[in-house]
C-alpha cells in the first residue's frame, strides 16, 4: 500500500504515522456508525419537537415568548470556534506530535465548550425564573428541554472525554492509541456542531419566526 492512501475521511496519518494510519480505518468507520446512530436519535427528538412546539403549547408560553435569540447566536459562535480550535489540535498532533501544542488547543476547545454549556444553563435559568417555563409546564417545553438537554449532555460528556484525553496525552504521549482516540473525539465534537446548527435553526430561529 502506498503511503498516500487515504483510508477514511478527515485527517489521515498516512505520511506521518503509517502504523496508526492502518489501525485507523476500522476504528474510525465504527465511530462514524456510532455517530449516525446518535444522529437518528437526535432526528427523532427533532421530529417530536417539531410536532409538540405547535401542538403541545397547552396553557404554557409559545416558543417566541421564551427564546433569547442573541444568546443562541452567541452559543453558536462558541461552538463554532471550539470546533475550529479542535482542528488545530489535530494539526499539531499530526504534523508535530507536539504535546504542548495539542494540550493548548484542547484547552481552548474545552473552555469554549464549557462556555457553551454555561450559557445554555443560564438560558434555562432565565426561562425558568423569568417565564416560569419549566419542562413540566407543557409538552412543547418538555420536548424543548429534552432536545437541547440531550445536546448539552453530549457536549458535557465531550468535555469529560477531553479531560481524560488530556491526561492520556500527558501519561502516554501521542501514542497510536491516544491518536486514534483524539481523532474520534474530534469527529464527535464536529458532529455536535452539525446537530446544533439544526437546533439553532429549527428550534430558535423557526420558533421566533413563526
Amino acid at each position, binding site marked *: 500500500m502506498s503511503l498516500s492512501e487515504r483510508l477514511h475521511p478527515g485527517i489521515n496519518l498516512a505520511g506521518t504515522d503509517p502504523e496508526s494510519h492502518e489501525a485507523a*480505518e*476500522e476504528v474510525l*468507520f*465504527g465511530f462514524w*456508525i*456510532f455517530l*449516525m*446512530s*446518535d444522529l*437518528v*436519535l437526535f*432526528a*427523532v*427528538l427533532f421530529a*417530536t419537537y417539531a*410536532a*409538540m412546539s405547535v*401542538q*403541545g*403549547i*397547552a*396553557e*404554557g408560553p409559545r416558543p417566541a415568548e421564551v427564546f433569547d435569540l442573541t444568546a443562541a447566536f452567541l452559543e453558536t459562535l462558541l461552538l463554532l470556534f471550539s470546533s475550529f480550535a479542535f482542528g488545530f489540535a489535530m494539526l499539531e498532533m499530526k504534523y508535530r506530535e507536539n504535546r504542548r501544542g495539542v494540550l493548548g488547543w484542547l484547552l481552548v476547545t474545552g473552555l469554549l465548550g464549557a462556555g457553551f454549556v454555561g450559557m445554555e444553563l443560564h438560558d434555562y435559568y432565565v426561562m425558568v425564573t423569568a417565564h416560569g417555563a419549566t*419542562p*413540566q*409546564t*407543557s*409538552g*412543547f417545553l*418538555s*420536548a424543548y*428541554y*429534552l432536545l437541547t438537554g440531550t445536546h448539552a449532555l453530549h457536549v458535557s460528556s465531550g468535555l469529560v472525554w477531553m479531560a*481524560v484525553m488530556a491526561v*492520556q496525552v500527558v*501519561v502516554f504521549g501521542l501514542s497510536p492509541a491516544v491518536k486514534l*482516540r483524539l481523532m474520534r473525539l474530534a469527529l464527535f465534537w464536529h458532529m455536535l456542531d452539525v446537530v446544533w446548527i439544526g437546533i439553532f435553526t429549527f428550534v430558535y430561529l423557526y420558533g421566533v419566526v413563526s
Partner: protein
Amino acid sequence: MNWELIFGQIKWTSFVFAGMIENPSLSEAIASGAGSIAVLGALGTVVLLTVKGWWVPLWRDWLTSVDHKKVGIMYIVLALVMFARAVIEAALMRAQQLAATDGGGFLSADHFGQLFSTHGTIMIFFVAMPFITGLMNYVMPLQIGARDVSFPLLNAISLMLTMAGAVLIMVSLVVGQFSTGGWSAYPPFTGIEFSPGEGVDYWIWAVSLGSIGSTLTGLNFAVTIYKKRCPGMSLFRMPLFTWTTLCTSILMIFAMAPLTAATIMLALDRYAGFHFFTNGDGGNMMNYANLFWLFGHPEVYILILPAFGVWSEVVATYSSKRIYGYTSLVYATMCIAVLSFAVWLHHFFTMGQSANVNAIFGIATMIIGVPTGVKVYDWLLTMVGGRIRLTTAMLFHINFLLTFILGGMTGVLLANPGIDFQVHNTLFLVAHFHNMIIPGVLFGMFAAVQFWFPKAFGFRLHEGLGRASFWCFAPGFLLAFFPLYWLGMMGATRRTFTWSNPDYLPWFALAMLGAALILAGFAFMVMQIVVSVRRRAELAAPLGDPWDGRALEWSIPSPPPAWNFAVLPQVTARDAFYEAKKDGTAYRSPAAYEDIEVPRNTATAPLIGLFACAWAFGLVWHIWWLVIVSFVLIWAVVIARSFATHTEEIVPAATVKAANEAFLAAVRATPGVTRDQEMTAANRGRAIPESLEASAGALAAGAAVEVTR
C-alpha cells in the same frame, strides 16, 4: 432512621411472598411459586458452581472472555434460559384462557397482565434478540474468514448489557411487580397516573439496557463485515447468512434509536413530570405509538432476516446444491431492509389519521411481501433436483416454507386498513405474528442450532430426539395458533383474561393442546442436548465438516481454535470451501505460519454489566445513592480500561502450526463419508463432496464404516 434513603421504595410488601401471606389465592400462589423458582434456581446454580468448583473456570474461560465464539454461545444460553420462562408463561396464559368462562380461571386480571407483558417482552428482547445475536456472533466471523469481530471488547459489553436487562426482569419475579402494559407499553396506561408502581419502570430499564446492547452489536457487526473480510471475499462472494447479518446490523444501528427516545420520554414523564405522552398539558400519547413502531417494525425484520440467512444455508447444504438465485436473495434482503423503515404505521391504522395516510402505509406494507416472495421461490428452487436429506433442520425448513406463507398471507390481509379495523387487537393479530415469529424466527434458530452445534462443540446432536422435538413443535404450533385466527374473527380480543362466549371454548381447548405439545417439543430439545452430551464420543465430528458444508466455517476444526484460522484464507469464489473440496485444494498446509495476536480476557465487560444492572435496579426503586454510585462506577471502569496497555497477547507461530498440522493430518487420515452416512457414527466431520461421491464414494464409504465400528 430514614429507610427510604437506603432502600428507596422497596418495602417488605414488595416481595412477592408477602402477597401470598397477606392475601392468599391461587393467583398469588403461582406468583410466589414463580418467585421461589427464580430464587431457588439462582441458589441452585450457586451451589452447583461451588460444589463442582466451577466458579473459576466460569469467570476465567467464559465471563471475562472476549472471543466472539464464546460470547455467541453465552448469548444463546441466555436465550434458552429466558425461553424456558417465557414459554411456561405462555402455557399459563393458555390454561387461564381455557379455564376462564365468565370470570372463571385461576389468575387475577393483574397477574394475567403481567404474564403477557413479561412473555412478550422476554420473547422479543431476551429470547429472539439474544438468539439471533448469538448466532451471528458465532457464525459470521467464521464465514468471512476473520479472527474475531472488529471490536471484541465492545461485543462482550453488549452481551453483558443484555444480560443485565434479563437479570432485571428475573428480579421482578421476586421484588415487586412487572408492568401490565404489554410489550409495547403504550401510555397513557403506562404513565404514572394509571401505573403508579414500579412495573413499568422495570420494563423501561430492562428494555433500554437490551436496546443499547443491540445498537452496539449492530455497529460492531457492520464494521466487521465491511472491514474484516479475508482476502478475495468481495461482498458478492459472502455467504447469505453473512448478508442477512449485515442487513440486520444496519437495521439495529438505525432502529434502536427511536426506541431509546421513546423509553427516555416515557421515563421523563414518569419520573420528572414531563408531558410527552400525558393526557393533558400538551402531551401526545399518539407520538409514543409512532416512535415505538418506528423501532418496532424494523425490529421484526431484525429478527427474521438472520433466520432467512439460516434458511438459505440450511436448504443449500442439505440439498447439496448451490443456492438458487443468490443475487436475487441479496437484493431481496436489501429491499426488505430499506422498506422496513417505511411501513411502521400499519401497527396503528386505527389511531385516527386520515384514510390517505393509512392507504399509503398499507400499500407500502403490501410491497414488502414481494421480495419475501422472491426468497420463498428461491428456496423452493434450490431444492429442485437436489440431493435432499430430511434432517431435523431441513424438516424445520420445509415446515417454515409451508406455514410462513400462510402467516404472510394473513399479514397482507392485515395490511388492508379496512380489514385491520375489524381484527385489530383481536387474537387474529396474535395468531398472525406468532405465525411469522415461531416457524420463521424461533424454528429458524432451532434449525441453526442443529446445523452449527457440531461446529461449536465438536459433536453432532442426536438426530432421533431432534426429529421428535420437531414432530411436537410443528403440529404444536399449528394447534396452538390456528384456532386463534378463528377466535379473532369471532371477536375474541387479545390481552384479555376472561370471556363469556361459549363458542370460544373448543378453540381455546385446541390451543391449550398445542401449547402442551410445544412444551413437549421443548422438553425433547433439552433431552436431545443432554443425551448428545452424554454420547458425545459416538457423535463426535471434530474434523469440522459433518454436512458437506459450503462456506469457510466448515474448513476449520470443530470446535475452532481461539484464532479461528491458522492462516487467513484466500477466497476466489462463492461457496469457497465447497469449491476447494471439489478442486482438491482443501486441507492444504499453508506455506508459512505467523504469530497471531489475540485479545486478552478482561473483567471490563462483566463489571460494566454488573453496575448497569445495579444502576437500573436503583432507578426502578428510586434508590438514588445506588443510581449515582453505579453510574460513576460504570464510567470509572470504562476510563480505567482506556488506560490499560497490555490488552493483547501473542500466540506463537509454532503453537498455531502444531495445532493446525495435527488437524490436517487427522483429516487426511480419515476417509470421507457420503451423504447417506451423514447420521451414522462414521461421520467424523470429513465429507466427500456430493459431486465427487460417484467416483470416490464407494471406496471411502467402506473404509469409513470400518473405522468406527
